């Protein structure tokens, strides 16, 4: 077992474990914390894939900003262990579980039976690809238009979020 493999399996197992734990928690704060753990593991996995920039951005944006936002909202809503938050085990639950399991099995089926000739070695320029310099070069030449449009998207999101969450001003 090389160092890479050990790291990979460790990170993968933690990611899988934390994702499962996330959906099973009753307290949303616990779910959020498990999700943060998941994101860190994913960041590590990106590093094994030589995507340094993305790994950093993942930790910064997801774990640092989005999850903080989630935690803020959870705290703001002050959700206790209400009776009203009790899960209801109805047919929907079983259907959901059934379908999800089926989905997993189908996807695994694809990977086991239908993927021949899949790549085993990372490409040659993978290391170079992940650097900030390279990504910056590609971002501002080939992907300039989506980059600019994204700024509009963020503007819309800001405006939307502010308006939706605003307290109604009553005279």
């Amino acid at each position, binding site marked *: 077992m090389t160092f890479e493999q050990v790291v990979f399996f460790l990170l993968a197992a933690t990611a899988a474990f934390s994702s499962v734990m996330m959906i099973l928690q009753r307290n949303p704060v616990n779910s959020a914390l498990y999700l943060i753990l998941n994101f860190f593991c994913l960041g590590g996995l990106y590093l094994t894939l030589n995507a340094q920039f993305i790994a950093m951005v993942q930790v910064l944006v997801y774990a640092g900003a989005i999850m903080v936002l989630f935690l803020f909202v959870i705290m703001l809503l002050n959700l206790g262990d209400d009776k009203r938050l009790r899960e209801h085990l109805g047919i929907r639950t079983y259907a959901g579980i059934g*379908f999800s399991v089926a989905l997993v099995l*189908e996807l695994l*089926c*694809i990977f086991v039976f239908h993927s021949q000739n899949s790549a085993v070695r990372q490409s040659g320029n993978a290391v170079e690809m992940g650097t900030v310099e390279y990504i910056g070069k590609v971002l501002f030449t080939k992907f300039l238009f989506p980059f600019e449009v994204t700024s509009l998207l963020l503007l819309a999101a800001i405006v939307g979020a502010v308006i939706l969450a605003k307290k109604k001003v009553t005279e």
Partner: protein
Amino acid sequence: MFSYVGFIVLFPLLGFLVLGLFGARMKSEKLIGIIGSSTVVLSFLLGASIFAEMLSLPVSARSHIVKQFSWIAAGNFSVDFAFQVDQLSILMTLIVTGVGSLIHIYSIGYMHGDKGFWRFFTYLNLFIVAMLTLVLADNFLVMFVGWEGVGLCSYLLIGFWYDKNFEKGTTGDAAKKAFIVNRIGDFGFLLGMFLIFATFGSLNFDTVFSAATVFTRGDTTITWIALLLFVGATGKSAQIPLYVWLPDAMAGPTPVSALIHAATMVTAGIYMVARSSILFALSPVAMDVVAIIGALTALYAATIGLVQNDIKKVLAYSTISQLGYMFLGLGVGAFAAGLFHVMTHAFFKALLFLGSGSVIHAMHEEQDIQKMGGLKKYMPTTYLTFLIAAIAISGIPPFAGFFSKDEILWKAFSDGSPLLWCVGALGAGLTAFYMFRLVSLTFEGSPRFDEHHLHPHEAPKTMTIPLIVLAGLSIIGGFIGIPESLGGGNRFEQFLSPVFAAADSKMLLPYHDVTATEYILMAVSVAIAAAGIYFARKIYLERTEIAGQTANRFPGIYKLLLNKYFVDEIYDASVVTPIEKGSEKLLWKRIDVGLIDGLINFTAKGTEYASQFFRRVETGVVQSYAIAFVAGILFILGWLIAR
């Protein structure tokens, strides 16, 4: 001259349009009457001039076709609106316009004071247009247009006094009966036309008739065509079994009965059979059917006419009977004889009807002859002309009816069978009897009405002059058809023979020399007629109690004849009522309301139930929708895997 034949139809058409559009506003009856009558007179004059020109041409050049416009051109099927002027059609044109113009003039006096005066002349002119289209057509389709047109005008004119009661219903019921019974006949005519088109590929007379000559005698298709066409003829010309409308048609004004139901429209069937003579000649079966039905109808209608008490009803049954004679003539191959009787019958039957109209007017709308009598001293002109017509119809020489009826009877004996002659002769005897019963009861004897309250007076000049003209024609009209046996050349038959040449050659009738048999039969028929007249006068003028006694001794037969053999009731029970009740109970209630409406309601209900069922999909909870998404993804993935 021939190219102007379109104007013959155009003049009455203009009359119809002018009177129809402006007639209601015209205040002067005289103006309306003059417009209405002059169009027909003009048509008659134009027809007469064409006839004169035709006589000056050699026989082979006498038939002309004048195209008015191209009507239908659809693929293989093309029909032109064209008029065929030949001997047969010009003869019919002259009869229609000649007698028609006399009746128009008569109507000016008869319909005086009627609030629908303008409407009457409008319809009459329209009728003349349709009838002329019928006789002048050069193909079956245009003839059918005229056929339907006269049926329509008959309906309009029978129901002219639309708010008047008539027997068990209204005049509208009588008009509907005429139209519907005619429709049944028209259905046969239509089927015949379809068959003609399928067999010959065209509806044009020239094309069809010249193509027919190659068929063998007795061909089944031709037989069917002839029989179907004859069904149409029985409808229009009131033969068994479709005659039932004509007695009811007497609900209309008397000039209508004279024009339409005596002289012209009812002869349309005879014209049609005569025009299609080659088709009938090719089918012995059809000819036999025509002759037998003609003879039967002649006798049958005469028996009914014996006991009727309404003056117009007697004349109606007389018309049916005489039409039977015409068909008898056609059926044994004597086409010219049949048409000769058409012409003479037009003269004296129109005269009889117009005379009866004069009587009805004088008696203030009374039509029951049992309440008349002794009118000859009040209305001498009417009496005299009526008497002349009665003598003519009874077949007493030298009046017109003798020559035409005798020609038919002789041909029935020699080319048909002695049995047909017997039936015809018996009918002739009955004809003489009931006609003179009518004359005696109406005009002669002593008045059976209250002379102090009712003052009958002679008709005005506009009514009596046509009577006189028609009487003259009834006297001399037969002279153009004097047979060889009596020294004449039978100019009438010779004039028409080119039209029937093809039929004659197919029938191969043996040539009959003038023999003693013909004279004997002639004498016998005159004797029968004279006997009929004698007995009628004896019974009804001197020994009137015999009539009552005979009626009481044979009450069953009397009742049967008086009620016209209950044929109307039989038809009503077997045909009319089942159709009415069946339509109401079955077709309307069960099928239309129950089935078709039910089907639509069922579809709507089904949609309602289905939507009640399916609306539960909308749970309002997002996750159930998400489950549906996932199910779809699973399905697609599965399909991709399985591929």
